[in-house]
């Protein structure tokens, strides 16, 4: 099995606020992340696809195709957006790195038809990242 990983970077802003909590609880739990004007990150996304290389082409999947999927499903949705207000797949959720990773998985899962989407890693900063292997799946 070959695991192929492609990276993309997008920039977006967000703030943390849960409607399930009071204003005071939100401030206490999230601190300055609760500032309603938001703050931003350069997110780095790694998408790993697993598969066997095609015997003719030697490729697990066509990278051009993967690049187009990432452009359409991720870049156009997240890049230079205010996630709380402009990204419908996260409506009603706190846009933590955990939830963003899960949402990105949902956007990509049905779209990669050659090979199998194995896992994604989303860096919010170089010192904080999340790995996700699909709902219910462990490493």
């Amino acid at each position, binding site marked *: 099995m070959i695991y192929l990983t492609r990276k993309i970077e997008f920039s977006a802003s967000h703030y943390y606020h849960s409607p399930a909590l009071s204003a005071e609880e939100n401030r206490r739990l999230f601190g300055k992340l609760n500032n309603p004007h938001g703050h931003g990150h350069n997110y780095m996304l790694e998408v790993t696809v697993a598969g066997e290389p095609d015997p003719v082409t030697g490729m697990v999947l066509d990278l051009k195709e993967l690049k187009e999927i990432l452009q359409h499903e991720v870049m156009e949705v997240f890049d230079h957006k205010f996630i709380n207000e402009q990204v419908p797949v996260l409506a009603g959720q706190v846009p*933590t790195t955990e939830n963003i990773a899960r949402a990105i998985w949902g956007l990509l899962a049905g779209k990669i038809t050659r090979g199998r989407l194995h896992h994604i890693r989303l860096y919010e900063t170089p010192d904080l990242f999340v790995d996700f292997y699909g709902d219910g799946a462990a*490493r």
Partner: protein
Amino acid sequence: MIYLTRRYRFSASHRLHSLRLSEPENQRIYGKCSNPGGHGHNYALEVTVAGEPDPRTGMVVDLTRLDAFVEKEILERFDLSYLNDDRDCFAEKVPTTENLCMEIYHRLRAGFGDASVDRVRLEETSLNSFTYRGEEGDNA
């Protein structure tokens, strides 16, 4: 399951030298790492916790609390220290990065109750790193 990883940094020195080995054996096995004055590294520590995000907060762990725990229990203990002097950790063991990685893992598993500690990865240099997930069964 979400695996969330946080990176930290600390600097420390150590000397690789085992009391169970003869002087020539120490020299042969550890080479310049056994220099009596010790030597140091800038370590990068990755702590991974695993869990499902809380439906209200969207978080697997409150990072402020993870940071506070690592700062107090790991970084304050090891940062700018000579690891061989730490008798609690290295009275019996050589402070290799393997042993330090396992020591940090066990301290996190024993003391941090907010989320399940999945693994510890410790970079000794940009070329060497060590990962520990516990023995079989720890993460069951």
